[in-house]
């Protein structure tokens, strides 16, 4: 049976690259808009700026911190020891998973359904493995922990955003001179944003670049990084001061201007976090295909994700952004949200922190759902005028529907590939 791999190895590899790139392109074209939507919607960034930020930080996140989740998708969901005899099935299955998740993403984007790429790829992998091969192939404890993380991540983001916004209220908004207080305390939030992102990168992300840090070194370097960010931010805040004096704006206008600068930083963190978690949806399966095909049928559970694969995913996301994502962004930019930067930053920072931590622990979670949880957290702190729970319900429904649809499609494609090649 392994002859299939030697015979069609190149075709399978090329197909894997095409499907993986297609999926990454889909993520860039569609999913990124959600990650950046809060910044654009609250007018902290223009559409052009958001795309620039997304390009740079999605790429950096995918390349520097995307490895852990990629390993989970590649070999965490499927128990490799069970299918050592038939490695080609894993290749067919991963191809099917990529194709079905990509197509589902395309359909959903067309109709404007808020689907999660993470849920479709996990559903697809579980689907082909459990139905196409055998129920025992699926490593259910891992799947259970992933599904649990889908519940935990929005709750965690919501709790963090609640606390963040409450601290903003106490430290800044409800003080005599909120403008001065904002200038004093906002750099600390910048430090926090820089620290969390750097921490995950230092701890988990730089191995394939050839750098390895201990926990204490990581903390030290992350603190340094955070301080640099905060310093940079403080310099930018100086400028706001002068602009406000010239324009003679009202109290909260000036405060929101300061938070808008903070939001530029949290938007970078958000794009980084999104890249670090969602790139795996495209290249996790690709990495599995590559390792099986290149080793000539060995399901090598040990090897790390080759950097060039991360590169393919990162490039795909950026290309998706550049070709179609900007159009989605413009639509998002037109949607006037009543989310002000002092609220938007709290939601973004909470979501980015949660996602990046999940990336560090290798859990594939949905950025959009985490962000929804974070927004609700700000709402609970009475930060947002009105939140449409109908839409929230639809988003939750979509993640439930996505699992069987992703699974069904991938089972279909799995048997098609199997029939075609074997």
């Amino acid at each position, binding site marked *: 049976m392994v002859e299939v791999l030697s015979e069609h190895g190149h075709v399978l590899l090329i197909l894997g690259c095409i499907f993986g790139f297609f999926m990454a392109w889909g993520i860039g074209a569609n999913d990124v*808009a*959600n990650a950046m*939507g809060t910044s654009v*919607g609250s007018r902290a960034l223009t559409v052009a700026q958001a795309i620039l930020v997304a390009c740079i930080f999605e790429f950096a996140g995918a390349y520097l911190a995307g490895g852990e989740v990629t390993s989970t998708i590649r070999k965490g969901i499927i128990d490799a020891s069970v299918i050592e005899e038939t490695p080609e099935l894993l290749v067919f299955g991963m191809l099917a998973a990529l194709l079905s998740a990509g197509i589902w993403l395309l359909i959903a984007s067309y*109709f*404007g*359904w*808020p689907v999660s790429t993470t849920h479709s790829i996990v559903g697809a992998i579980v689907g082909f493995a459990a139905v196409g091969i055998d129920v025992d192939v699926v490593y259910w404890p891992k799947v259970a922990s992933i599904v649990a993380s889908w519940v935990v991540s929005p709750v965690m983001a919501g709790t963090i955003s609640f606390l963040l*916004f409450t601290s*903003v*209220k106490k430290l800044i*908004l*409800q003080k005599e001179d*909120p403008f001065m207080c904002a200038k004093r305390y906002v750099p600390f939030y910048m430090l926090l944003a820089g620290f969390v992102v750097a921490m995950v990168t230092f701890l988990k992300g730089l191995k394939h670049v050839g750098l390895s840090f201990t926990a204490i070194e990581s903390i030290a370097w992350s603190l340094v990084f955070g301080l640099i960010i905060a310093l940079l931010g403080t310099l930018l805040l100086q400028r706001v001061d002068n602009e406000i004096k010239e324009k003679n704006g009202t109290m*909260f206008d000036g405060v929101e201007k300061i938070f808008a600068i903070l939001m530029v930083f949290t938007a970078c963190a958000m794009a980084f976090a999104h890249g670090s978690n969602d790139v795996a949806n495209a290249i996790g399966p690709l990495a599995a295909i590559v390792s099986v095909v290149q080793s000539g049928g060995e399901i090598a559970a040990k090897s790390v994700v080759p950097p060039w694969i991360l590169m393919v995913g990162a490039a795909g996301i950026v290309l998706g952004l550049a070709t179609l994502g900007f159009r*989605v962004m413009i*639509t*998002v930019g037109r*949607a006037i*949200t*009543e*989310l*002000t930067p002092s609220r938007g930053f709290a939601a973004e920072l909470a979501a980015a922190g949660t996602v990046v931590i999940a990336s560090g622990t290798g859990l594939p979670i949905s950025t*959009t759902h985490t*962000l*929804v949880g974070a*927004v*609700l957290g700000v*709402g609970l*702190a*009475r*930060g*947002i*005028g*009105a*939140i*449409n*729970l*109908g*839409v*929230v*319900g*639809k*988003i939750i429904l979509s993640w439930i529907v996505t699992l069987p649809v992703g699974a069904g499609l991938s089972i279909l494609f799995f048997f098609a590939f199997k029939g075609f090649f074997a």
Partner: protein
Amino acid sequence: MSNDSFLGMFAKSPFSSLQEHMDVGKRAAIELQNFLNSAKKSDWDAASQYRQKIIELEHAADGIKNKIRSNLPKFLFMSVSREDLLDLVYAMDGIPNTAKDISGIMIGRHMEIPEQVSDQFISFSNAVIKASEQASAAIEKVDEIQKSGFGSRDAVLLQELVAELEQLEQEDDELEAALRNDFFLIEKGFPPVDVMFFYDIINRIGSLADISQTVGHILIRLVSK
């Protein structure tokens, strides 16, 4: 991308519309002030122009009211209670409505304001209109409170504003009582139907102050949640 996308979860905040509605109500109250001054001088041409403005403002207020209500489906998760908000809109809408009713009755009957109490009548109505301006200031405060995330410091400021509003309403009550008293002493000299309608108008003007006070009370409830 339809409204079901992630950003669709941000519904329109009701606060800007509330201010818009209150602003229209306040303008209607000010036009009523102009109207009453013209009526006092029996200048019915000018009065009917003011009456026209009041009608337009009342229509505008109805439009805003409907907009607020239709943007408040039950599945909204808001920083204030939906019931309080609807109560508030209902109360606020009473200001332009009452202004319209008062001007309507007076213009329909070309109602002369009795000479002996006309100054008293005008200062009473001026005081009432001051109360609606105070209610408007309280709503502006609520907008600020919302921007600051409903802090207790702001809530205290609002309570102070509403306490002033209560004070104004009390003064209006006293002015109303004095006006009724003084008119009672001379009412025999006027046609009974005119007397009836004059009392009715006094009553309605007084109710404007009550409405402003109610608005203030609902605002406190709204903020404290």
